[in-house]
C-alpha cells in the first residue's frame, strides 16, 4: 500500500482534507528548498509536491515560470532533486511527489529515473505533458517500482476520458480547477462542482483540487466535495518575497490554509 493512500485514509477518518503545498525544487537553491519543505512539514503539510524545473514550462503561469528559472539558474538537475527528497525522507514521513515535464525525465533515462526516484523515496509522479495516451512506457515502470502514477483531470475532461484515466491513475486524481495555466485566481467557477461530482461517482481514488487555490475561502467553498487541495503559485509568490520561512506573510498564509483544510 502506497503511503499516499494512507494519508488520505487517515485524514478522511479525522474529517480533514489533505493540504498539498507545491515548491519548485532548487528555487532559489536546493538548500533553501529543503528549509522550505522542513517548514511545510512541521506546520501541517500532508503531502509535498516538488517541481522538477524545466526551461519551457508550458502549463505554468508567471509565478512558477520564475521559480523554474531561478532553480535552473542555480544549476538544479534531477539528481539534486533526488538528493533533496532523500534528505527530507530521513527526517520526515510525509510523502513527497514529484511534478514535472517529460523531457528532463526522458533525458535522464525513463527507467533510470523511476528506479532512482523509488530508491530516494519518491512516492508519486505527475507529468504535466504526458496524457494517458502516452503513458504506456512509464506506467508499468511506476507500478514495478511502487510509485503512484498521478494524472490530471480538468473541467473539459469527459466521461470517456475519466474512465480512461481511472485505469492507470494511482494515489490520487489531480483535478485542475480551470482551463488554464497555474496561477492565482480570485474565484474558482462553482460550475466545476458538477464535474467533480461526476468524477467522484466514477473513481474511487481521492480527488484533489489544484490550480488557482489562492485563498482559504476557496478551500472552504469546495471542502465537502474533495479530498485535498494543492497550493502552488500562492505559496511560491510569497516565498519569492524573501526566500525565508520567517516571512510573516508566508507563515500566516500557510497557517490559514492549514486551518481551512484541517480545522483549528
Amino acid at each position, binding site marked *: 500500500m502506497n503511503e499516499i493512500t494512507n494519508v488520505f485514509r487517515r485524514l478522511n477518518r479525522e474529517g480533514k482534507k489533505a493540504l498539498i503545498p507545491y515548491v519548485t525544487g532548487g528555487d532559489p537553491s536546493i538548500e533553501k528548498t529543503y528549509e522550505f519543505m522542513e517548514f511545510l512539514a512541521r506546520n501541517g503539510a500532508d503531502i509535498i509536491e516538488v517541481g522538477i524545473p524545466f526551461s*519551457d514550462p508550458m502549463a505554468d503561469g508567471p509565478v512558477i515560470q520564475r521559480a523554474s528559472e531561478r532553480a535552473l539558474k542555480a544549476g538544479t538537475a534531477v539528481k539534486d532533486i533526488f538528493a533533496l527528497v532523500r534528505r527530507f525522507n530521513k527526517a520526515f514521513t510525509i510523502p513527497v511527489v514529484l511534478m514535472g515535464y517529460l523531457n*528532463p525525465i526522458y533525458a535522464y533515462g525513463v527507467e533510470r529515473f523511476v528506479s532512482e526516484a523509488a530508491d530516494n523515496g519518491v512516492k508519486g509522479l505527475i507529468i*504535466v505533458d504526458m496524457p494517458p495516451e502516452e503513458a504506456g512506457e512509464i506506467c508499468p515502470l511506476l507500478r514495478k517500482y511502487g510509485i503512484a502514477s498521478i494524472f490530471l483531470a480538468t473541467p*473539459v475532461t469527459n466521461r470517456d*476520458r475519466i474512465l480512461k484515466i481511472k485505469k492507470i491513475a494511482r494515489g490520487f486524481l489531480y483535478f485542475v480547477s480551470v482551463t*488554464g495555466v497555474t496561477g492565482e485566481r480570485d474565484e474558482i467557477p462553482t460550475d466545476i462542482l458538477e464535474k467533480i461530482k461526476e468524477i467522484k461517482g466514477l473513481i474511487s481514488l481521492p480527488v484533489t483540487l489544484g490550480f488557482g487555490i489562492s485563498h482559504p475561502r476557496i478551500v472552504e467553498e469546495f471542502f465537502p466535495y474533495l479530498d485535498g487541495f494543492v497550493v502552488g503559485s500562492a505559496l511560491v509568490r510569497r516565498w519569492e518575497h524573501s526566500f525565508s520561512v520567517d516571512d510573516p506573510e508566508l507563515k500566516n498564509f500557510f497557517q490559514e490554509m492549514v486551518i481551512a483544510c484541517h480545522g483549528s
Partner: protein
Amino acid sequence: MRKGYYGKFGGVFVPETLMPSIYELEEAFFRWWRSRDFRKEFEGYLKDYVGRPTPLYHASNLSVRCGLTLYLKREDLCHTGAHKIINALGQALLAKKMGKRRVIAETGAGQHGVAVATAAALLGLECCIYMGADDVERQKMNVIRMDMLGAEVRGVETGTRTLKDAINEALRDWVTNVRTTHYILGTVFGPYPYPQMVKEFVSVIGREAARQIWKKEKRLPDVVVACVGGGSNAMGIFYPFLKRKEVTLVGVEAGGKGISTGHHAARFQGGKVGIFQGTKSYVLQDSNGQILDTYSIAPGLDYASVGPEHSFLMESQRVTYTSATDEETLEAFFLTSREEGIIPALESSHALAYVIKNCTRWKDKLVLVNLSGRGDKDVETVSRTISP
C-alpha cells in the same frame, strides 16, 4: 505504425486540458478533408486568393553560374509572400467549421503570423499572434502588417524571447481559451494531428512542382532542396517525391555561426531525441534535458526542434539533412538577388546556399529548390550586415 507516430517520432504530449481539443481537431480535420465541398472551398481560395499554382521558374543565370539546371518553386509569389498562407487558410477554414470564433498563432519570422492574420481578416475571425520580443525587433515590417490586418500582436518577453517562447505562450493561451479558440500551429510540428494535417495542406506545393517539372523537362528532378525550420515547406515539396527513391531529397537547417560555435539551430547535427512542445523528435538540449537557446540569422529557422516526420526521414535515411551558415546564406541571398532579380527570404536562402556550395556535386543535374518566401521582411537585417 501507432497513430500519430512516424516510426518512433511524433505523438501527443500535451496537458490533459488540451486533449479534448486535440481529438476534436483530429475528427474535424479528417472529416472536412474528405469533404468535396471543403476541398473546393480551400482550393478556390488557393487559386484566386493565394495565386496558385505558383510558377516553376527556370533560374537560367544561376544555372549557368552553377553549371546545373536549377528550377525554383516560386512560393515567394504567394499572397503574403511565403508558403505559410496555405496552412493558415486551411486551418482558419477548419476553425470556422469547428465553430471557433478566435484563432491564435505563434510566429518567428512573422510570415506565419501575417498569413494567419490575413486568413483571419478574410474569414472574420478574431486573431492574436504571439511573437518573441527579439523577433518583434528584427521583423518589424511583419509586425506592422499584422497590426494593419487587425490582429493583436503580443510580444513574448519570457525565456529566450524567440519562436519557442512564442509557442509556449500560444499553448498557454490555448489551454486557457480552449473552448473558443483554435491554435493555428505554423508548421509540421507539435502534437498529432498537426504534423499530419499541415503536411496534407502544404503537399499542394510538391504536387504542383512535380507536375510542372514533368511538363518542362519530361523527367523527375535529380535533387529537391528545401530549408527546414519546423519543416513545412520541405515536407510540402518532398511529399510526392518520397516514394521515388531515385530523387535525392535534401533538407537544409540553420548552421548559424557554425556548428562548432554552438550558435546554430541544426537539430540533426547538435540535437538528440527528446519531447518538446507536444511531440517526440530531435531537440537541441543540454545533458539535463533543458532546451537550448538557438541562433540563426533567419528567424523562421531559429528553433530548437523539428517536425517529427523529418526525424523519421532522417533516421530512415530517405532525406539527407545538412546545414548552411549565416555567411553562406547571405552569399546566396545576394547572388540570387543580383543574378535572378529575386530577393529570397533568409530562410529560403539556406536552400539556395546548399546548391551554390554543392555545384560540383550536382554538375549538369536537374535541381529543384523550394523558394519558400520572399526577402522583403529581411532587407533591414541584411542591410545591417553590410553597413554595421
